[in-house]
């Protein structure tokens, strides 16, 4: 009897709410999900193989294309892994530049997330435009610093590619100081909204133990109440010098995942204020660090950072040559989808888009 009731639906790959070319084969009993199989690979170009055929430096611009919303944190993760592998020191000013650009990236990612998830819920337009208005200001800063809005290619081994243009720090300070007001505006617009609460609260809760075992990382992990932020745990770069809090959720439902981004953006503002106040003068790249023709000694290293979407890691093996022997990316977007079926089972079809939106994926990174 139940066989007559269930229907199979292919959600995607072309679907406005799948954030790219991502497909889910869903079995429905009425409107309830009884099975969900994600299908990947529509954007696969084997990034890892391409990187293994090029020099160490040539992989840097290509990392921009992973999670194309957050190019600067991708750059940092790769630079960090190579620096670990080859034992390269990072210039002091560059450490501050990295923190500033990475936290700006986190701000604009979380802001874009707020717009996207509202779009997933059917509030198409208004919230996204509010969010993108603010994101655009940050992208303008990226453009004046690196020459590109999204394909920044800014970090280098041992530092950054170029110093700040004149007036950049003042413009950033102004943006950062005005940012909490925008977050207040956004929260006032959204958080009291009954429809938003009804669509998010209690949808797809996730326990802490399950989230850890499923390898979730970043905001999705912390929304389940796990106090784990790689900026605190590893203290990579100079994060151990800054004072900031790590927000945590309680029940790990979609609302916790949503609110966590807002709270994290507020903490990023705090880090940015401290970093802008403390940035020293000096070179932006370690003059001893070799860029072109780098040949790290034979060995391997795993370097990871707290990206806006979760733990972004690079596992590199060098055989002493001018190309990576093995170049592996640990993509947070893909691994955060591990528990997607578990989260969606028993929910309604319309909730799938909200759950997927609350995980926050970018297909450039899922498929690589």
């Amino acid at each position, binding site marked *: 009897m139940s066989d007559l009731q269930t229907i199979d639906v292919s959600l995607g790959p072309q679907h406005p709410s799948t954030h790219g070319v991502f497909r889910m084969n869903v079995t429905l009993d009425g409107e309830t999900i009884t099975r969900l199989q994600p299908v*990947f*690979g529509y954007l*696969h170009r*084997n990034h*890892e*193989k391409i990187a293994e055929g090029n020099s160490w430096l040539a992989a840097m611009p290509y990392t921009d294309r992973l999670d194309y919303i957050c190019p600067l944190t991708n750059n940092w993760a790769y630079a960090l892994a190579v620096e*670990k*592998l*080859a*034992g390269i020191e990072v210039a002091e000013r560059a450490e501050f530049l990295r923190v500033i650009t990475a936290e700006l990236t986190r701000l604009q990612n979380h802001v874009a997330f707020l717009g996207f998830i509202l779009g997933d819920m059917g509030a198409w337009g208004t919230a996204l435009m509010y969010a993108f208005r603010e994101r655009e200001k940050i992208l303008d800063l990226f453009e004046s610093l690196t020459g590109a809005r999204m394909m920044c290619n800014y970090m280098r081994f041992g530092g950054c590619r170029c110093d700040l243009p004149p007036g950049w720090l003042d413009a950033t300070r102004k943006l950062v100081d005005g940012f909490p007001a925008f977050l207040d505006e956004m929260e006032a617009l959204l958080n009291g909204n009954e429809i938003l609460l009804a669509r998010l609260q209690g949808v797809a809760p996730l326990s802490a133990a399950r989230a*850890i*075992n*499923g*390898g*979730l*990382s970043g905001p999705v992990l912390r929304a389940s109440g*796990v106090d*784990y932020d790689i900026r605190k*745990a590893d203290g990579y770069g100079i994060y151990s010098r800054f004072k900031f809090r790590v927000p945590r959720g309680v029940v790990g439902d979609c609302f916790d995942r949503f609110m966590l981004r807002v709270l994290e953006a507020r903490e990023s503002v705090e880090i940015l204020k401290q970093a802008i106040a403390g940035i020293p003068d000096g070179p932006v790249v370690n003059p001893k660090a070799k860029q072109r023709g780098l040949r*790290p*000694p*034979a*060995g*391997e*290293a*795993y*370097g*990871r950072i707290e990206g806006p979407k979760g*733990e972004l*890691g690079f*596992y590199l*093996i*060098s055989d002493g040559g001018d190309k990576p022997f*093995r170049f*592996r990316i*640990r993509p947070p977007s*893909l*691994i955060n*989808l*591990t*528990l997607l079926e578990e989260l969606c089972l028993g929910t309604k079809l319309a909730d799938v888009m909200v759950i997927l939106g609350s995980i926050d994926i970018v297909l450039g990174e899922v*498929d*690589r």
Partner: protein
Amino acid sequence: MTGTLEAIRAAMPSAGVELVNNPSPCGQHSLRVERKDALAVAEFLRDRLGYDFCSNVSGVDWPTRKVKETNTKKEVVDGVEKEVKTTTERDVPGFLEVVYHLYSISENSGPLTLRVRTGDREADVSVPSLTPVWKSADFQEREAFDLFGIRFDGHPDLRRILMWDEFADFPMRKDYVPPDDFEYEPTPHDEILAKVKARTEAA
């Protein structure tokens, strides 16, 4: 790392575990585990040593290497004793390897690098799946199967993940040769084109 190794050896004296030295300045040494013991060691690491977070699963292809060996022998040539050098080439057989990077969220430690090797690159390419221990290995082991051709015994759903199901090769292997035309598929035009070509050549 040596403490972890001793703890494993104390709890499981028969387990085949050895330390693999990493010459890189980062000093991330790793533990190599025999295939038969991998699942038991993984469970021990998770339940007893607190490695609750399996961060990264990576396939590595180590192709067959040629190693040159030079031997010096004393021989009598034309009544005079000389040192004669002979160079022999020896093949070091290749294998595939799975590398797991483990972290402990409860103890805030890591990474612990765990390596499991297959027997060779062609026939004996199975390793036990660690997905029953850490669910996060699910998609990543599928990826290693897809791109490297490593078979994971006990994986709940071992299918290709990034390449399409009909794809036959393993693109991340070092000896993979990409096709000239990725999008080639036979069409009726081929016949017509062949006819035209034959006619123009005859004329």
